[in-house]
């Protein structure tokens, strides 16, 4: 079934290399996109809980816009519509970016800003879940509101939401496949190309599927590790039950 991977395509490279090249773009998109999402998400999430009505309203607006438009539509907006809205010179420059950058950057912005809206809601929930006494104590000590957020509220809120952020990490990673619609040759797009070139649809997509699954497991493990690393000593752990399935990557003899 997987022997297709060891055949050579029209460019003389193994189809396996095609897949790995696609994987590279998928990972680049997911990784860089995640940090964009995380940075914007934390800022907007904190903004959602701001005492300033203007900041709270703008943050809410951001979340509603980016969370409620289908990610595929957003992909098209960034790729097809944005260059038309920019000043002519800049728009033309964007449209003439050499491949794959012409598709990579819109895809990156799309996934980053979309996931940021989801992260922001998690951050807001995390902040609201903290006891009121934390902010009171910080205020009573004379800390400014900004310092209170920076040193007291956000560090605790982020720890609280690590389990639900795991879903967002998995989410952005899977959503990278939408970038194929604007011509980025990421993992799914490469699988499709292999399938079209060899008619071995099953082999091509099965390979891509396995790669997605394996990496999802790695991401999950990574988040468990981060959760453990930032766990606050003396508090009860937020560990999800470790299913035997994931023992694959865990320590031996756990079961």
């Amino acid at each position, binding site marked *: 079934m997987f022997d297709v991977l060891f055949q050579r395509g029209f460019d003389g490279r193994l189809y396996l290399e095609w897949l790995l090249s696609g994987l590279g773009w998928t990972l680049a998109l997911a990784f860089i996109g995640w940090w964009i999402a995380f940075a914007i998400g934390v800022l907007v999430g904190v903004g959602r809980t701001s005492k300033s009505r203007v900041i709270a309203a703008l943050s809410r607006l951001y979340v509603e816009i980016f969370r409620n438009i289908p990610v595929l539509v957003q992909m098209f907006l960034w790729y097809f519509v944005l260059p038309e809205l920019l000043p002519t010179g800049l728009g033309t420059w964007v449209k003439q970016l050499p491949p794959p950058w012409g598709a990579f950057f819109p895809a990156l912005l799309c996934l980053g800003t979309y996931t940021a809206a989801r992260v922001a809601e998690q951050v807001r929930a995390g902040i609201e879940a903290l006891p009121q006494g934390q902010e009171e104590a910080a205020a*009573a000590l004379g800390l400014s509101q900004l310092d209170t957020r920076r040193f007291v509220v956000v560090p605790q809120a982020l*720890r609280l939401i690590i389990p639900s952020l795991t879903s967002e990490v998995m989410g952005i990673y899977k959503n990278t496949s939408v970038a194929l619609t604007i011509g980025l040759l990421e993992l799914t797009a490469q699988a499709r190309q292999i399938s079209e070139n060899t008619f071995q649809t099953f082999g091509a997509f099965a390979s891509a599927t396995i790669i997605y699954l394996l990496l999802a497991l790695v991401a999950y493990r990574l988040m468990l590790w981060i959760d453990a690393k930032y766990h606050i000593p003396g508090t009860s752990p937020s560990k999800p039950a470790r299913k035997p399935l994931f023992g694959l990557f865990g320590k031996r003899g756990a079961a």
Partner: protein
Amino acid sequence: MNQSNANTNVVEMIDVCKRYGTFEALKKVNLSVRKGERIIICGPSGSGKSTLIRCINRIEQHDAGSIVVEGQELTGAERDIAKVRREVGMVFQSFNLFPHLTILENCTLAPRRARGLSKAEAEDRAMHYLSKVRIPDQAKKYPGQLSGGQQQRVAIARALCMEPRVMLFDEPTSALDPEMVKEVLDTMIGLAEEGMTMLCVTHEMGFAKQVADRVVFMDGGQKIEEADPQTFFGAPENDRTRAFLQQVLH
């Protein structure tokens, strides 16, 4: 209006009112505290005693009347409030330590960020006050690893690290297991003996008798009685005070 001296009051509350919706938590309360005075505030739950001291550092905002702390009137101005809060330490019923920071970091955060101390200065100061509350050996631990009594002593040290002019205690022993009450009260007695200006909401009447210069009894959002401990416990004037004392003194 700027600098206070020994003659002026550290805290001056005049006709302070506070309402939550239609509920009047404070009805024209007057209270003045001189430098070095120890004031105990008691009263049944819902009497407004916590609200009263929480207004002093504007954790709660009063609706009418005036509050002057260290010569600074409390209004909406953000900068003035920050200034007042740096001079007023507060200890809460539920400790409110920052669980993600070590004991040492809990004590150094505000001095570094709000007083501009260097890390080394703040740590020296923190160790000084942690020694004072007799837990310097726990500095590297996290709050969750300490007992309730230890946590509350850390909370006292954390407030002292700002070297405040006034300390507010909001039922500091109410959340503690009985065997831990004494260690916290002893710390507070030590502080009182050093001349710290203190306002303390508490039901610990033994403590009140021992350290108070004045005892204030509140009920229904009003100050019902205010007297020195001998008078307050020996010959209370008001019926409600007597009824309350009968319930808490056993």
